[in-house]
């Protein structure tokens, strides 16, 4: 049912693709503000979101709108000013065993080989060497890096390193895979192909995913639902169900329905992004004056 009316449907509940039941992730009226020398800055303001088992949800918004702030709060690496976040029914305060994070920055350990990198979370959990390497092997295959087990990150391309990071987080076997612009540093082609990989993995493991991104194509290609954020303070502008058939591949990028979703989201985002650019220009003007 990918009709135009459906596009405009604003939903706070689960997507059609979700299996229902208790949400795995609940973000409940969350606020984050920072004390800065210039005063209080509210980065995330009153955001709410439920994510169900098996769902793929993207959070999209212009640069500086508070996406990483939200990511770090869900991951338990940043305190919450107001509201509550719960994972698998447990309140988040500190990194939760059900959440695996993939970061925006380059994050592989340069002194470890691919397999040692991927086995890292298992090593932390105290899994014996033989077993953890064997289990790591499974996830290395999953991201298509077999044959590169003994290589060091410096010998791999950026896209391969990002796949190592994803495999490492998958080896943690999180109920919720949380990713912050994992493909931001990659070129468009690699990004699309990695997107296929992620879709395939998600289907295979029935993995619940929350993806932070500022790339509209990527969001539409991968998601069941997309949450659009406003620019500063970061609020929920709206949530869109993506009613495209699954299994999907990157070929879907060329379809009409896909184009309509992209246009739709861009329409919403443009206002926010231009607001952001105006703000930044004003700030630059202020700095120029003595």
């Amino acid at each position, binding site marked *: 049912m990918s009709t135009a009316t459906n596009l405009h449907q604003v939903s706070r509940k689960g997507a059609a693709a979700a299996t229902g039941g208790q949400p795995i992730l609940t973000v409940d009226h969350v606020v984050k503000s920072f004390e800065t020398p210039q005063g209080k800055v509210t980065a995330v303001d009153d955001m709410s979101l439920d994510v169900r088992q098996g769902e793929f949800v993207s959070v999209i918004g212009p640069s500086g709108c508070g996406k990483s702030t939200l990511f770090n709060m869900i*991951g*338990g*690496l940043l305190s919450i000013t107001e509201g509550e976040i719960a994972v698998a029914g447990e309140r988040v305060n500190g*990194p939760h*065993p059900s*959440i*695996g*994070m993939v*970061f925006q*920055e*380059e*994050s592989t*350990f*340069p*002194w*470890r*080989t691919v397999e*040692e990198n991927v086995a*890292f*979370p298992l*090593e*932390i959990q105290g899994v014996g*060497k033989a077993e953890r390497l064997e289990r790591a092997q499974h996830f290395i295959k999953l991201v298509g890096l077999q044959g590169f087990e003994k290589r*060091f*990150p*410096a*010998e791999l391309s950026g896209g391969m390193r990002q796949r190592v990071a994803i495999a490492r987080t998958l080896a*943690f076997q999180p109920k919720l895979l949380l990713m912050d612009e994992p493909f931001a540093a990659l070129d468009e082609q690699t990004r699309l192909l990695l997107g296929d990989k992620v879709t395939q993995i998600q289907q295979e493991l029935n993995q619940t995913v929350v993806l932070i991104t500022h790339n509209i194509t990527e969001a539409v290609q991968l998601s069941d639902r997309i949450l659009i954020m406003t620019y500063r303070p970061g609020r929920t502008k709206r949530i869109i169900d993506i009613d495209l058939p699954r299994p999907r591949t990157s070929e879907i990028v060329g379809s009409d329905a896909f184009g309509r979703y992209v246009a739709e989201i861009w329409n919403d985002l443009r206002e926010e992004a231009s607001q952001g650019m105006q703000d930044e220009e004003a700030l630059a003007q202020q700095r120029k004056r003595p």
Partner: protein
Amino acid sequence: MASTGVLTSSERASGWRPDPVLWVRLAIIVGVLVLWQVVAMSGLLYQDVVPQLPAIVAALGRLLVNPELYRNLWVTLYETVLALVFGGVAGLFVGIVLGGSRFFGRAFEPYLYYLGPTPKIIFFPVMIMWFGTGGGSKIAMGAFSCFFPVALSVAVGMRAIPPILMRVGQSFRASPRQMVQKIYLPAMREPVVNGLRLGFGIALIGVLLAETKLSNQGLGFLVIQNYQRFDMPAMYALLIAIFVLSMGANAAITRLTSRSAASGAR
């Protein structure tokens, strides 16, 4: 391991091709020896202060067959290694705490910076009172001296670790101990090794200096003994032996640490 990101050091270590640099180094040694001999023969300085090379070589020969040398060498080495262990472990620990916490770093590091360059020998009387006139005070001197460079270089190295790697560790719920073992230390291998190498040299200085001041054994003691007997050839022979010893120890530390790095973080 032929193709790793850290291959440069092991490659350098295994390559024993004659190198133009090696010739320059040899030429420098030869040049110094020739200059020495010329000065000695010219009679510009007292024969006793600048003895001729053959006299020094003969003294070196006598020294090398003298069991006294090895007994005292062993004492000095033992004291230095213990000093490095105590001072190095303390420095590593303090460096990690100061580098890991902005608060502790800001609160305590100024003291390290002020105390670091202070000549530690002025604390020797205190060490004697606390640890006695025997080996204890020498070890304490060496440990105290090498603590500072190790702590400072570890603290600086700790701050240079990309914060993202720590966040990865946290997100996988690594314990503080695992963070140190599996992230901080491997990420800081370079500064830690440099700190320990520097620390070894400084521990040796501290021990030797203390031995020259008050002791009845060790290489420092031998140097002073020969000086007091005014046996200059023997003293120079000893200085050469000490020079070779510290060079050898330095090379050994480098070898050891690059080996452990090549075997990788398990």
